[in-house]
């Protein structure tokens, strides 16, 4: 046995610490943006454009003299906020649909499955681009497109969970003892689903952030002067050679947040692993 090798327990501990530390950091950033912002994110100051870092502007200013740090922090609220909204909408639409399709079956299930197959035949990004392209640029349309693409995954997953659980004896016994379908759904099925939904949602969270940012970058999502990270990247493109840091900051922000979301998702997936459920 190698001396350097970490035990699985130790790795897990490190992972939890990493996640907690990153979460605390993110929460601190959010708290900061709510409590204290020195500059207005859209106030231009052309006389002081593309300034180097200083005490007044710790990350410098952009091509219109706006404070980059302020925009970055506000962008955190916007990007993460938009992703959460899209995610919540996808879950709220997808979960009841999946429950219904799984429990009822019949024509409802067949129609739903064909729709789901249709959506799943194309990659997420392609559908989102086509939809937001058709609906016109703007963050509202982009969010609508993302929800339309994402709800299918939740509905499908919930449906398959319901289909396997419904066959088990405890559901039969709950029915035998006279519980209503709604109670069975709420008390005996929903807790099974919540774990899976949570895992899928946290894994999706990063993907949605990327989707919003990348579509904003190509001009389909948030429009300038909104301090959305993807839009910021797009705006700083012409200044890339002279002032690369303008692009580095929002890019780095996206990487960090997506990374945290994925690590969190992995952790939750391990935590809710079905195989571990049986062990005392």
């Amino acid at each position, binding site marked *: 046995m190698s001396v350097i090798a970490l035990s699985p327990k130790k790795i897990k501990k490190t992972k939890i610490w990493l996640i907690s530390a990153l979460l605390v950091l993110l929460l601190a950033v959010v708290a900061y943006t709510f409590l204290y912002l020195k500059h207005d994110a859209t106030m231009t100051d052309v006389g002081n454009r593309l300034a180097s870092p200083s005490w007044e502007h710790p990350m410098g200013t952009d091509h219109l003299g706006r404070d980059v740090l302020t925009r970055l922090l506000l962008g955190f609220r916007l990007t993460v906020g938009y992703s959460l909204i899209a995610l919540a909408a996808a879950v709220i639409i997808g979960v009841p649909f999946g429950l219904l399709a799984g429990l009822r*079956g019949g024509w409802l299930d067949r129609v739903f499955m064909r729709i789901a197959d249709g959506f799943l035949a194309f990659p997420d990004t392609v559908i989102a681009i086509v939809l937001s392209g058709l609906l016109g640029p703007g963050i509202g349309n982009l969010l609508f497109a993302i929800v339309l693409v994402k709800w299918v995954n939740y509905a499908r997953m919930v449906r398959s969970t319901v289909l396997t659980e419904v066959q088990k004896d*405890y559901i*039969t016994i*709950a029915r*035998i*003892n*006279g*519980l209503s379908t709604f109670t069975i759904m709420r*008390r005996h099925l929903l807790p099974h689903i919540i774990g899976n939904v949570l895992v899928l949602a946290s894994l999706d969270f990063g993907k949605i952030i990327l989707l919003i940012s990348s579509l904003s970058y190509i001009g389909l999502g948030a429009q300038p002067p909104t301090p959305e990270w993807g839009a910021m990247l797009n705006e700083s493109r012409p200044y890339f050679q002279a002032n690369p840091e303008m692009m580095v900051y929002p890019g780095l922000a996206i990487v960090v947040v997506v990374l945290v979301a994925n690590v969190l998702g992995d952790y939750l997936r391990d935590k809710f692993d079905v195989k571990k459920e049986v062990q005392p």
Partner: protein
Amino acid sequence: MILSIKDLTVSHGEKTIVDHVSLTIDKGEWFALVGQSGSGKTMLSQAIGQLLGPNLRASGSVNYQESNILACSKTEMNQLRGKAISYIFQDYHGSFTPFLTIQQHMDEYLQTHGVKEKQKRNSMAKEALESVGLDAGFVKRYPFQLSGGQLQRASIALALLLEPDILVADEATTALDSVSAHRILSLLQELQQKTGCAILFITHDWRHVVRYSDKIAVMKDGKIIEVGTKQKLIHQPEHAYTKQLIQAAPTLPLRVREVSKS
């Protein structure tokens, strides 16, 4: 007579699984339904509680207290279930929702059937566990914290909680070792004498049938081929298949003689 089944037929598309079965079960009786796998025993028992899947159709009548169960509406059925008919299954691990404690299971069923006071529900749950020989402290435990035999006892406690008139035991002891199985069955017998419920005992194990049942029905290919009291079926089996079943049972000759003396 507590339950009478008339011309019950269960079919799946063109295929008939249970074929015009008629049976009567008396109050407080231990009624054994014997037959090999695939003979339709389980389908018959599920039809009684309206538990058949959506692809299966049941016709005929199942009469309980002068009402036909097969014709009951959903709400009427929810009233009947648990109070009139209860089930215990082979898979005791699957009989409990994994993330609810034993108490939470019992609490829910008692609440559904109108026991309003929390105090009373708690004491009833504890009594139910004690009546099957388990420690009352087990109410706080999760299903995975109990052993197989304990879980099967707990599932009996759960099934008898609302004092049903009929308990359907569908291969309830098949997954247990023979010592535990006999313990569970004698416990059932004891509880039956106490509560006076009828037991529809579904099994393929002839040894249990010989030892515990009052009346026996033999089922083959969806049909009941022979019904009678235990004495009659053991000593004067009419049908060739019944004779075959008796001969195939892994029973010591000593045991047969002992039973026939009693």
